[in-house]
């Protein structure tokens, strides 16, 4: 099993959710987060003087999936969240040791 964590632009959340639903993903967890990447935030003008916005608002999506569907999931997120502009975000993939459905006690791929 794999845990796919994607950091995306907030306005792309609906597109990503739809794309994941279409390929049969059963559930996702969404968190509003802030952070910076290579650009290190950006500057704004206030009364003619610059100020730096260090941390930009992003959305973090976490999806637990079977290993077999990993490529499909990555492709769906990449396609849906892509604008071609700086700040589109990143996808991190980690190995998931175990998953348990609390209600039934099912484990492993049955639980996701």
């Amino acid at each position, binding site marked *: 099993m794999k845990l796919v964590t994607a950091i995306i632009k907030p306005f792309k959340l609906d597109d990503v959710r739809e794309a994941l639903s279409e390929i049969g993903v059963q559930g996702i967890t969404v968190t509003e987060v802030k952070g910076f990447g290579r650009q290190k935030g950006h500057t*704004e*003008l*206030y*009364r*003619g*003087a*610059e*100020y730096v916005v260090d941390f930009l608002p992003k959305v973090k999506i976490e999806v637990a999936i079977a290993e077999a569907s990993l490529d499909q999931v990555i492709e769906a997120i990449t396609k849906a969240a892509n604008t071609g502009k700086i700040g589109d975000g990143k996808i991190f993939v980690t190995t998931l040791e175990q998953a348990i459905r609390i209600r039934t006690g099912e484990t492993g791929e049955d639980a996701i």
Partner: protein
Amino acid sequence: MENQIFELQYAMDTFYFLVCGALVMWMAAGFAMLEAGLVRAKNTTEILTKNVALFAIACIMYLVCGYSIMYDGGIFLNGIEAFDLAGVLSDSAANGFDGGSVYSGASDFFFQVVFVATAMSIVSGAVAERMKLWAFLAFAVVMTGFIYPMEGAWTWGGVDVFGLYNLGDLGFSDFAGSGIVHMAGAAAALAGVLLLGARKGKYGPNGEIHAIPGSNLPLATLGTFILWMGWFGFNGGSVLKLGDAASAHSVAMVFLNTNTAAAGGAMAALIVGRFLFGKADLTMLLNGALAGLVTITAEPSTPTALTATIFGAMGGVLVVFSIVTLDKLKIDDPVGAISVHGVVGFLGLLLVPVTNDGSSFSGQLIGAVTIFAWVFVASLIVWAILKAIFGIRVSEEDEYEGMDIVDCGMEAYPEFVKS
């Protein structure tokens, strides 16, 4: 019958003073909201405290001695409570129905006292976020009880400047106080800012200018609209009479011109800001509307509506460049008060002779220099004394913590505070 008409005229002109005074009083709310919006959240309670307290101090000090210095009234308003119907009627008969207005002395005091508070409100914004509460209030006592009444006496009071020269005779005219109220407040603010220094973090070691965004732009916008509304009392009331057709028409023109100058100033600042900064800067738009109002305040009764709009727009353009320039000079003014009221107030004075034949350019210049020099130097001395005795600036740690907790012990927006 004639006497009853004179009594009615007295009632109308007194009532007009009182309503306009109440409108100007409401400007205190405008300043409070504007300043609360343009400071950081951690300094909100303290700036509100300053705004309410300075208004109360102005009311008391002007009663104690200010009105006496400025208009030769009694100390503690001694005698203002007396009502003399025979005197009212004889004055009215002597002036004639369309002559100078006759009104209650109490209404005159009420109308004048709110102007003092306006001048003092200008100071609080410029020195915000770093000046000690009690040092500020101590300054307010001297400013409203002595510094402002002195220059008020030389201008509206008609008294010679230290017995040397008379501004009225030189052709100085300031209808509702672009110079007497607004530039005076800004001069006191500038003196304070120079001794106080910039907020920590505002300017970098290599001359960089860092923006410190205001915490609540809806409040700043509300404050600007409140000031805009109050200004109808400020300028409209300064016609001093409503009770005959010519005066009523003059009042209407003043309202019209005041409003249109604000509109011109707002749009000019918005457009200039868009070209300079690439985006529509709301705070500049707000300052632009106020700049338009300050510009027209020196003479709202003689310009045509179009001229008034253009004058306001000139103020709106000037205020943006002034704010940017003051920042380059490292004069830190969180709300732009020195630019809006001082620089633009000066412009307003200089524009008076364009439409008012009763004033002269040289008279305006001498008047402006007199007001500025007096208020600036007197304020500098008072600030310096306060600085030497008590200190006027909070410690670096307190500034970081925020004035709210340090001075007032309470946050303006406590839900956002982590326990």
